[in-house]
């Protein structure tokens, strides 16, 4: 089947927009920044604050994160831990537990639709999820055992790494896979999906399966250790390394995420590191925000949102790093 390779690092799935959407986007980002910095400023008066202020602020922050996460092309879970961990008074143990649930609930909610549309492949996801979910248990236990300063420092570094990845990573809509590797062939890691934009049926297959499995082993450790959704790592691994089409990579990433985060979530649940008062407003706020974000896809400027999210992540990553190093406590 003829498939035109398309490499465009600057491509956005969104239509060009004018000044008004840009203003709306900047306003949304400003609210998010204002909320997080206000939360940080108010954290000095934690004891005097009524208990419900923080869950309410968390709900609003997650709602805004959910709105910007969709057009920015990043999972809400990736935004959650660095922002909430840096600017809210909750201990990082509980933030990571809630972060895993945010990423898990978002992935679970999206997966059925993606699977029905053929964008999330169970066949491709299962071997990768198996190694990643096993290693995520180790990552979660490591995260709960390490000193918080060490985790905070590592989180700062990983968030700055995500920023670098967002700035530099290329995407390939239909990577060229001349021939599958032996393991990929044995597992029949291929399929067909219908591209909604063109209506064409696209056959796909993957290569470098053993290397892909190793990379997902590392991704699982990171997901469990930091409680962040690993879509930022899953998609490049599936798309650029293994050669799955971009849409199949994004869809299958969600399915892998749902299995990996399920394993890690059990560890946090068993260790008592899941507080419903933190987790529930976060999950509900993020899911409602993501629904609004999906509806606003044609109104908000994806490129501007993406730059704002990079800015917020850069700030949160620096804050986590400096907090971990004891420079900015």
């Amino acid at each position, binding site marked *: 089947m003829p498939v035109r390779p398309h490499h465009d690092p600057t491509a956005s799935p969104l239509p060009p927009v004018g000044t008004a959407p840009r203003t709306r986007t900047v306003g949304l980002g400003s609210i998010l920044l204002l909320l997080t910095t206000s939360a940080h400023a108010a954290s000095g008066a934690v004891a005097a604050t009524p208990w419900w202020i923080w869950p309410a602020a968390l709900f609003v922050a997650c709602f805004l994160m959910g709105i910007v996460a969709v057009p920015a092309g990043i999972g809400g879970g990736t935004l959650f831990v660095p922002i909430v961990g840096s600017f809210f008074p909750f201990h990082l143990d509980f933030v990571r537990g809630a972060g895993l649930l945010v990423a898990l609930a978002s992935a679970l909610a999206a*997966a059925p639709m993606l699977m029905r549309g053929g964008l999330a492949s169970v066949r491709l996801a299962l071997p990768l999820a198996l190694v990643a979910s096993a290693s995520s248990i180790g990552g979660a236990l490591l995260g709960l055992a390490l000193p918080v300063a060490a985790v905070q420092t590592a989180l700062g570094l990983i968030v700055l790494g995500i920023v670098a990845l967002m700035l530099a990573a290329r995407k390939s809509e239909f990577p060229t896979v001349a021939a599958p590797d032996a393991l990929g062939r044995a597992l029949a890691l291929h399929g067909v999906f219908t591209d909604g934009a063109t209506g064409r049926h696209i056959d796909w297959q993957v290569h470098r399966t053993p290397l892909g499995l190793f990379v997902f082993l590392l991704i699982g450790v990171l997901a469990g250790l930091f409680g962040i959704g690993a879509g930022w790592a899953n998609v490049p691994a599936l798309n650029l390394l293994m050669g799955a089409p971009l849409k199949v990579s994004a869809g299958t990433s969600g399915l892998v995420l749902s299995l990996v985060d399920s394993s890690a979530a*059990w560890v946090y649940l068993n260790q008592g590191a899941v*507080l419903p008062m933190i987790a529930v407003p976060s999950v509900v706020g993020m899911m409602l925000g993501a629904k609004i974000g999906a509806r606003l896809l044609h109104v908000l400027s994806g490129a501007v949102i993406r730059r704002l999210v990079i800015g917020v992540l850069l700030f949160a990553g620096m804050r986590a790093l400096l907090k971990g190093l004891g420079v900015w406590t």
Partner: protein
Amino acid sequence: MDVKPNLAHAPADGGDEVQLRYARVLGWGTRIGLALLLVSFALYVSGLLPPQVPLQRLPQLWHQPVAQYLAQTGAPTGWRWLALLHHGDVLGLVGIAVLAGCSGLCLLSLLPLYRKRGDRAYLGLCLAQVAVLLVAAAGVFGGSH
């Protein structure tokens, strides 16, 4: 450019059946989990079910590491929360457990399909993934402080 997938090892049939069954079970599991999460949270914050840790105490506790939080509150670890479901905050864990467990049910629902098809590799992968989830859920590694 032509990309020609090698279909020699494709499943004989029913790739869509696997996808659809997984999607159906996951869709229901997620809906039930989220509904339980919302209902239990409403019971918790409304005070209809008294929490194990009073709401007013939370701001003095949630900035502490989990080990200190547990020591000060006696909050349950492992599966001990099942005995405390009359508390609003603990009841919230039911919805979370359903969300974390529904993928396991999806995988189990695929077993008859893979068995019927003679796809031993994926039968084994499903069982191995369920085993990983069970190990994590059972708290085999560090189930409690």
